[in-house]
């Protein structure tokens, strides 16, 4: 092949390759841009999920109570609370059964703030194994246990090893009670919420999707002695903060829960609709009066109160 022809070929090949490379680059840039925009939607969604989580936390934190000494291997005794506004006397709670406040300073006292990064623990406290059937019913008709639902093996069993089925011991009971607080790596840096108690029943909720673990700023990180979470690097925190989505809300707790509500037997009794008969379906009825209505309220085991209202705060409030 002559030199001019070789030159022509190389020009054509180089041109085609450059064209393809340009197209690929354009695609990659566009996809990266799309990915970044999609991340923003994901972050917004995740932050809103944190609003639900924070409301659930507020509901439970005033009622389910607190461990008196969470530093002990076995966190008992656990003291139940009676609401953010004590349902017994209207005083500011949460208080224990004897009326003693379950706080001193800081959360859950008025003015206190709870910071809740939402990574998963490797093993939560009191975790049990996920085995579904420890005692399957024997299906062999030739054996004497056929068809009997015997409880021959312990059910459930702890997630930590207890030496079953040889010689069961309680040497790891402390681990079972305390759990393993180390975060699962795939769940870190994704979302968090924090709750600031403004008054007896009003809270400012901050919902976050990002990797700051809920700390407001670097000075708070340092004040709480948590700089190690960011490798002691203020710039790392600043970058996490810049990529983060934060939403602020004000909410109000109420002691009110769903009332017991019932369904009359009118349809079953012929629907005369004219006389008192005081017959009701019970709660969660499912087996009454086959072929007729069985409706009544289901699943209302709500003993921790409700959230009266939610208000978005378009700017961060003074204290959160």
């Amino acid at each position: 092949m002559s030199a001019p022809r070789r030159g022509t070929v190389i020009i054509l090949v180089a041109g085609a390759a450059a064209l393809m490379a340009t197209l690929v680059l354009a695609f990659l840039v566009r996809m990266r841009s799309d990915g970044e925009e999609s991340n923003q939607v994901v972050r917004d969604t995740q932050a809103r999920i944190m609003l639900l989580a924070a409301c659930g936390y507020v509901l439970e934190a005033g009622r389910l109570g607190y461990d008196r000494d969470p530093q002990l291997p076995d966190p008992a005794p656990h003291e139940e609370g009676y609401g953010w506004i004590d349902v017994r006397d209207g005083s500011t709670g949460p208080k224990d059964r004897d009326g003693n406040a379950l706080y001193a300073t800081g959360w859950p006292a008025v003015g206190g703030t709870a910071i809740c990064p939402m990574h998963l623990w490797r093993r939560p406290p009191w975790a049990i194994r996920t085995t579904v059937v420890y005692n399957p019913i024997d299906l062999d008709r030739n054996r004497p246990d056929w068809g009997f639902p015997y409880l021959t093996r312990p059910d459930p069993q702890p997630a930590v090893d207890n030496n079953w089925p040889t010689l069961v011991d309680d040497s790891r009971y402390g681990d079972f009670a305390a759990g393993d607080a180390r975060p699962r790596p795939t769940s870190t840096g994704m979302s968090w919420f924090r709750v600031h108690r403004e008054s007896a029943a009003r809270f400012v909720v901050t919902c976050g999707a990002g990797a700051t673990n809920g700390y407001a700023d670097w000075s708070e990180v340092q004040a709480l002695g948590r700089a190690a979470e960011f490798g002691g690097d203020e710039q790392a925190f600043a970058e996490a903060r810049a990529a983060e989505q934060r939403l602020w809300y004000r909410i109000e707790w109420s002691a009110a829960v769903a009332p017991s509500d019932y369904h009359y037997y009118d349809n079953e009794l012929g629907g005369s609709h004219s006389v008192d008969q005081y017959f009701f379906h019970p709660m969660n009825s499912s087996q009454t009066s086959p072929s007729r209505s069985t409706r009544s309220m289901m699943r209302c085991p709500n003993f921790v109160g409700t959230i009266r209202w939610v208000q978005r705060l378009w700017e961060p409030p003074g204290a959160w």
Partner: protein
Amino acid sequence: MPERAFTLIEVMIASALGLTVCLTAFAGLRAAAQSVSLAERLATENALIRAGMNAAYHEVDAWRTYDDPADATRQRLRQYDATRRMGLPFTPLKTSWTPSGWSSADRTTWDEDDRGWNSGEAWSMDATNARTWWRGNHAERLRTDLRYGRYAIFSNLEPSLNVVSPAGDYGQVDVAHTWLPNQLAGLRDALGYYGMIDYMPANAIYGFYQAYSGAYPWTSWSSVSCEWVQPDYDWDWGTRRSYNGDTFSNNDGYTCHMRSLYSLNYASSYALYPPTAANAGWDVDLLVREHRCQKYTGYGSDRDRDMLPFIATAMTADALVPLKPTAWPQVKVSICRSIKIRRFNNLCKVTWTSPITGDTAELSFSGFGTTLRGARQDRGLDLP
């Protein structure tokens, strides 16, 4: 010596090969250009869908489709019907519900004769506050035989009344507990059903006793107010029918006793009505009535009579980008706020239509965020 020319066969082969190379190159470029165009179109579509999602999320908190604080022409739910003395979900409470018996400077002294909305309201202050307790016979039917006595004398809308009935007259009584019935009636009048439910606590029993008028359907002889418990009760005292919907209680099981929301709207919904094409002509009279009735949206509802009108009047369908290039897909953001089976539902939809194929797809989800009361507080509508 003259140079040798190409033979005819050489020229033909060279031309064929050259043409093939050119066509291949053209096809390749054309495919690349189409790919770029398709990718651009899909990227634009995805970007618009994301923008639609963001707009829906924002609307869940902002409520601007229902009431735009920055645009007085988009505040029709702030109107007030002075004739009936009834408001709408965004009517300022100082307009729709005149306070009496307390002052804004004193939010801690509670009396049964307090009227109007106190932003430091009793339910949020103390569950032990006796005036927040519902007093009545929960199992008593509307037309009861009063076998367990007259509960109307313990709690009533009226502070003093002559209790009469075909079952026997009781006489004049002064009623000790009137705050709770008047809060329920006041919120109903000030905000409509959705707003009333939003402001009442979760354990509210919807119903109260009031003076027996002797004329069905005002009250029954037990003094149970028909409005809350009787499905076919006409709320406007027989002078008007609600539009495509009954009043507070649906007819599920014809359960005529005072109760909470679960069975009251088992088969139906209470909704808010933002401006839509289907309700653009509603005047304040119709808006007041529509915010005080329930719509059948559960079992037994009819597609044409119930569901389609409900969707047309209660669900927005706003174009995300009204003035867009013709090559862009049409993206609409919808929201419908309603209560059914005691659940608050903010149904959001993002719908997009391809300008080329006409195909339509949608994402629908239930959003959680600012409640009606939160939106009103954000606008300062609850201030005395």
